[in-house]
């Protein structure tokens, strides 16, 4: 019995393949068209989801210029030279806070910002990825070497916030902590340029 079955299956497999009829060919073509349409639709969905972001980042890049910097020469030229760090008042509304993160300090190590005005934070790293996180606010800013990362913040009331590094960056990571102090706009304006730049040294 078993021998018979074996022979039977053998004869089935050795049967010459039949020529595909027109119907099966048509269905194959239809299948291909359908999968092609699905692919096109998926691409359309992806593009329509991504498009606003791409346009926005494109416009941002056009407005702000390229956000690339050389991490090795931050102290020599460009916006992250030593004398340009810290909080500065902009001609329009708000302030800009420029910071460098490097192993194992944030420069300046203590920053002052005014409350009630938009703060534009521009940060970059001189060596590896760091991530200052402003405690009790849920704000985390990833500092990436080679790029300027920009974030917008606003503080409602004065206070002192811890700003530790939340991305492992080497053997000194666990003490890489800085401070952010939010003061009223009036108090901020009364301070000297030096005091606004680095409150760790005052």
């Amino acid at each position, binding site marked *: 019995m078993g021998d018979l079955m074996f022979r039977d299956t053998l004869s089935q497999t050795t049967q010459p393949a039949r020529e595909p009829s027109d119907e099966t060919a048509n269905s194959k073509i239809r299948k291909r068209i359908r999968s092609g349409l699905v692919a096109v639709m998926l691409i359309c969905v992806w593009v329509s989801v991504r498009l606003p972001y791409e346009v926005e980042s494109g416009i941002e890049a056009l407005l702000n210029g390229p956000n690339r910097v050389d991490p090795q020469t931050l*102290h020599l030229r460009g916006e992250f*030279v030593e004398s340009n760090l810290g909080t500065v008042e902009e001609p329009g509304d708000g302030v800009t806070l420029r910071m460098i993160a490097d192993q194992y300090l944030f*420069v*300046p190590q203590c920053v002052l910002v005014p409350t009630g005005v938009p703060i534009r934070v521009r940060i970059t790293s001189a060596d590896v990825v760091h991530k200052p996180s402003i405690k009790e606010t849920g704000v985390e800013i990833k500092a990436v070497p080679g790029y300027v990362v920009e974030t917008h913040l606003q503080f409602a009331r004065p206070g002192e916030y811890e700003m530790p590094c939340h991305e492992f960056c080497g053997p000194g990571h666990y003490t890489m902590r800085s401070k952010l102090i939010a003061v009223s706009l009036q108090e901020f304006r009364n301070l000297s340029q030096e005091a606004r730049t680095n409150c760790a040294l005052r």
Partner: protein
Amino acid sequence: MLCARRLAGTRNALNGQIGLPGIALGVVSFLLASANLMGSDAPEPPVRIPSNVAWTAETIAKAYSGNALRGLLVARRCDRCHGREGFSSNPRVPNLANMDRLVVWKQLDDFRSGKRSSDVMQSIASSLSLQDTADIAAYYWIMPIAWDPADDRAFPQPLSDPRLEAVAVRLITAGDGSRGLPPCQACHGSVGWVSGAPSLATQNATYLLEQIEAFASGQRRNDINMRMRSIAAQLTGEERRALAESYGAGLSPISSPQK
């Protein structure tokens, strides 16, 4: 303003002779001049650059390109203060034996450009070519730190107060998170190294203390990205003394960058 008035004068003179084109020329030049004046009126903060050295691939390659044999000859002018084999007999002068090549390169460059000031070193550094600098760096880098009974070195010096050791060990190995002070060993060895950070394991106490004080007061400001100024300014007087004396007593593990 003077410039604008003079331009107005030329405009009048031109007006008499050439007429309309003269007026046009005068107006254009007046506008240009006023634009120039407005540009110079805007307050520009002075750009402060701590050091001209940046650790780009070319700079590192240049600093490593020294020939220690040639350095042996060039470095003879350093013997008087830094010792024949890089160990000084004067505790105010840094020991250079086994110092990383990038450190010697950067400090000599900073002396040359005036970013770090020293009456003695600035004139010596300006007499050195870039090749000399690399050669000297290579020479000191291969000098051993093993104790030699024949030479007259200030290192190591005993602690003035044994209680300082505990203060220093805590800062060297753990730092102080509450003030954001990283452990010294994360950059100065033996746990981690940062380009341009000197090994402190065989450094003289008096020299170290003077440098910490200089960083804290802002008198020395050639540290890239304000690393040492930020740290030194936050150390208390006792901590500064403890760190300098502990390193100067040879209490930290001795090692050099693996490069």
